[in-house]
């Protein structure tokens, strides 16, 4: 997807997150933070030329669905390494919280939000957008 479309989706998920309670709606909170973060990282990867905003080719991956899928054939760019770690933290909430029986507690919700804030800061830096 094109960069603008990724950012539009990230902004839309962020707006929807604002209507949820992080603890009561923990499953959706984790998934929507992941979607917003994934779209921001995809946009930044396209800007850096690491991935293509068009169909994937043998030489270049297209959009990532997750930090691990499709597997990247090279390390994450230095400017996005921390964002990949942060997104992986959010993704790893899914087995217990989204698909499993546990509830998102306040410390984990805060860590997830902090992770997303880091992704937003670092991807905005790559995208040349001003962080709030």
């Amino acid at each position: 997807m094109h960069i603008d479309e990724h950012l539009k989706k990230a902004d839309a998920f962020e707006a929807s997150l604002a209507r949820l309670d992080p603890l009561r709606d923990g499953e959706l909170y984790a998934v929507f933070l992941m979607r917003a973060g994934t779209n921001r990282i995809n946009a930044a990867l396209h800007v850096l030329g690491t991935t293509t905003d068009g169909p994937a080719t043998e030489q270049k991956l297209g959009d990532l669905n997750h930090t691990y899928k499709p597997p990247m054939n090279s390390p994450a760019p230095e400017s996005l390494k921390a964002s990949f770690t942060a997104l992986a933290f959010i993704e790893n909430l899914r087995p217990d919280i989204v698909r499993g029986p546990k509830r998102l507690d306040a410390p984990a919700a805060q860590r997830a939000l902090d992770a997303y804030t880091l992704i937003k800061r670092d991807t905005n830096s790559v995208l040349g957008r001003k962080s709030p």
Partner: protein
Amino acid sequence: MTPAEHLAKAESIMAGVNKLAFPQDYLAIVDGSLVAGYHYGNALLHSHGVLPDAEHVNTPSKLGIAAPALPPAIQPAFAAFTELERLRSDFVRSPSTCDARLEGQVRELLNVMRRASAR
């Protein structure tokens, strides 16, 4: 997770989905509905003996069982689950705009899954 645990989780997730509204939250509603569908779908797989309580399938495309091989009672719900997965691909993971028919479509798919899992 047991079917009862899945159903409780699905209802909790739907309470969150119901805080959102078309058209502004259409991406979140499509995505959140598939998360609820995951729990309705797995409740059905457990209660109809397709999968034990300790095994789960994330999406219908990963089930590895053809729809006609599923118990007839859960086939309509799995058709709905499959359609929710397709909507995620078409709307959440692809360039999209909110379609006027989407709200009714998502609501109906969830109703099919919810009714089947309540039986």
